[in-house]
């Protein structure tokens, strides 16, 4: 067989050039990701503190079941299965990524193959099978959004960027999988011909589950040179997509693939019906009941405000929730207010929280890390009172969320601000408050009549 043209150039020089390009891309891609990820971390930590470090074992269990085991996805089996294909393919492909990075830096080719032998063939074959399943899943997902128009995926929460965002990532996924099969398919033919640019040609075909069949089918008629070009396009395309994806993540709604883990770990472990008791209020109430009670000194760095007007009034967990949301809309599709045509959408609560937080973050970036008042707030500019007052606090959104996001807690914090800071409750609710204050019941009945039913 002819010597391959690439081999005629001095090997070390070609390798050096490609290795330098690869290392530069790796540093740039990784560095930019870390730079942006750190900004997200800073934004999340703008939230108020809340203790979620207790009960480590229960938290690990929740994370393993809900994030790793996708437990809550399976209440809707069809999308759960399709999502599982993508998820498992994504996780297992990371193993191959290690090889790609080593090959890229060292200029080797399939560096693990000689030492792993049959196990290597098995692993890469497994990745191929999962990639095909992920490909099928992705096609279904595109169809569900664009052809079948599943209500929660064409909901008016998602007009504009969110809709494009969802489609971009799915198209990217398909492109990535195509690159994988270009790389493996062309390489199969090269190996079979003994013409691979690997140092250790050895024993003919790679024997990969999918590529050993589709490789010869698609690329069998090509010259060695052509195959090498296809293989390299696949290899570089694959890794470029990975770097691209990593950096697209931080700009898109797809952070759930990383944040699902901390977000479920820091889940609320208490009964869903238990709302927080505001400590600041407890101090005031205790002072009323017991004049000798001295409240602990307030933290001078935290502005004294009841409830939430803006994102910085929320806790870091609520802000982490916002970044973790992948806009699947299970919450909104189960929300009694939304399904009966009210303005409230728990998904939109999360999207608005994230949008406002991003805006606050950009404001800080533009002002040397200090937030300059922009006259805007989460309440009013992003979320309206009409949305907040439509909530029945039924917890369906919290129950549904596959990554344990709690939209209800944000709604309640904002109601607290409207009631306790603005006195802006709906008139009927003010009447209810007055009744409880005066009669100990939400209606106008005297407390003295509370046992009258006994004799009626």
């Amino acid at each position: 067989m002819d010597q391959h043209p690439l081999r005629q150039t001095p090997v070390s020089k070609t390798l050096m050039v490609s290795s330098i390009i690869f290392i530069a891309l790796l540093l740039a891609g990784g560095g930019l990701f870390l730079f942006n990820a750190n900004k997200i971390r800073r934004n999340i930590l703008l939230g108020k503190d809340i203790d979620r470090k207790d009960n480590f074992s229960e938290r690990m269990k929740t994370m393993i079941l809900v994030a790793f085991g996708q437990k809550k996805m399976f209440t809707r089996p069809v999308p759960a299965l399709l999502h599982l294909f993508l998820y498992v393919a994504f996780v297992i492909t990371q193993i191959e990524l290690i090889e790609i990075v080593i090959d890229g830096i060292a200029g080797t080719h399939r560096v693990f193959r000689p030492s792993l032998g049959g196990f290597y063939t098995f692993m890469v074959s497994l990745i191929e099978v999962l990639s095909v399943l992920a490909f099928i899943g992705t096609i279904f997902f595109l169809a569900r959004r664009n052809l079948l128009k599943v209500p929660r995926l064409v909901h008016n929460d998602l007009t504009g960027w969110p809709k494009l965002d969802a489609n971009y990532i799915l198209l990217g996924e398909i492109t990535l999988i195509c690159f994988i099969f270009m790389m493996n398919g062309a390489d199969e033919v090269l190996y079979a011909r003994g013409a691979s640019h690997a140092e250790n040609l050895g024993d003919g075909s790679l024997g990969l589950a999918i590529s050993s069949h589709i490789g010869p089918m698609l690329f069998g008629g090509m010259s060695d040179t052509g195959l090498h070009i296809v293989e390299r396009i696949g290899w570089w395309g694959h890794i470029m997509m990975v770097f691209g994806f990593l950096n697209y993540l931080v700009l898109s709604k797809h952070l759930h693939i990383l944040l699902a883990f901390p977000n479920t770990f820091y889940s609320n472990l208490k009964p869903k019906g238990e709302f927080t008791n505001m400590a600041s209020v407890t101090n005031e109430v205790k002072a009323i009941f017991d004049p000798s009670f001295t409240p602990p000194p307030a933290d001078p760095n935290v502005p004294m405000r009841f409830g939430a007007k803006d994102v910085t009034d929320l806790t870091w967990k609520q802000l982490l929730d916002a970044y973790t949301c992948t806009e699947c809309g299970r919450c909104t599709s189960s929300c009694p207010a939304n399904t009966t045509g009210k303005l409230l959408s728990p998904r939109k609560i999360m999207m608005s929280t994230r949008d406002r937080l991003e805006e606050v973050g950009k404001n800080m970036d533009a002002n040397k890390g200090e937030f300059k008042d922009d006259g805007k707030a989460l309440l009013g500019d992003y979320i309206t009172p009409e949305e907040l007052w439509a909530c029945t606090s039924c917890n369906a959104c919290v129950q549904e969320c596959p990554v344990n996001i709690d939209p209800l807690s944000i709604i309640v914090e904002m109601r607290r601000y409207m009631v306790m800071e603005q006195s802006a409750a709906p008139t009927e609710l003010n009447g209810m408050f007055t009744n409880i204050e005066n009669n100990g019941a939400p209606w106008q009945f005297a407390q003295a009549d509370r046992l009258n039913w006994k004799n009626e």
Partner: protein
Amino acid sequence: MDSTQPSSITNQPLSVPTMADYMAKGESPEILFWVGCSGSFDDRAKKITKAIVKILNHANVKFAVLGTEESCTGDPAKRAGNEFLFQMQAMNNITVLNGYEVKKIVTGCPHCFNTLKNEYPALGGNYEVVHHTQLLQDLLNTGRIKIEGGDFKGKKITFHDPCYLGRANDVYEAPRSVMINLDAELVEMKRSKANGFCCGAGGAQMFKEAEKGNKEVNIERSEEALATNPDVIAVGCPFCNTMMTDGVKHFNKEQQVKVLDVAELIAQAKDL
């Protein structure tokens, strides 16, 4: 009528001692029955309260009510965002409850249940709190009440999960296991248990007009309940009762379909 029961037990006047009565005698009851505002004042809910009392009397449960010393738990204020009013109510109630050294509470309402059980402890009110369907389950399990069929034998019953009993506190089995004793056909709605659909009254919605939409939440839910062709829509919450009753009326089905609390089902089955 249950033939195993002496007829003298029926239509007896209700025995409803108060905590103050017990204290005057130097005794304490095994459980406090927290009646709640609906159970005290709402005409429909008062019937549920009486059904619970009849069962407690029948099972010889030593219970008491607070009577005029009871006050709103603060639930609707808290859900509406008035934390200050909630905590004022809570502190007042805790003072009364702790004054009587209350250990165990049964509520006729899942909202009172949730608030007393989950939100009072941090404010100094620590009690064992059960919903009345859990107490009924316990009375049946321990043989303190027995039911063999009765009025609802062969009838079709569907149970509407109250949000504050179900999702909020993961209690799904107690009401169902109680109703199994009725020898009725229990059918589930399309959305039930953890996926149950709200009646529309929670989160202080009971006390205000709904926001603009294309349907009322209780109509949506009643439609779903009626789709099971039930004889009875069983509920465990006075608010759900109101909402589902209105919904059934909206569809002109009030002659065919009854909306009854689990406690009423048991009391009626025993002809109490």
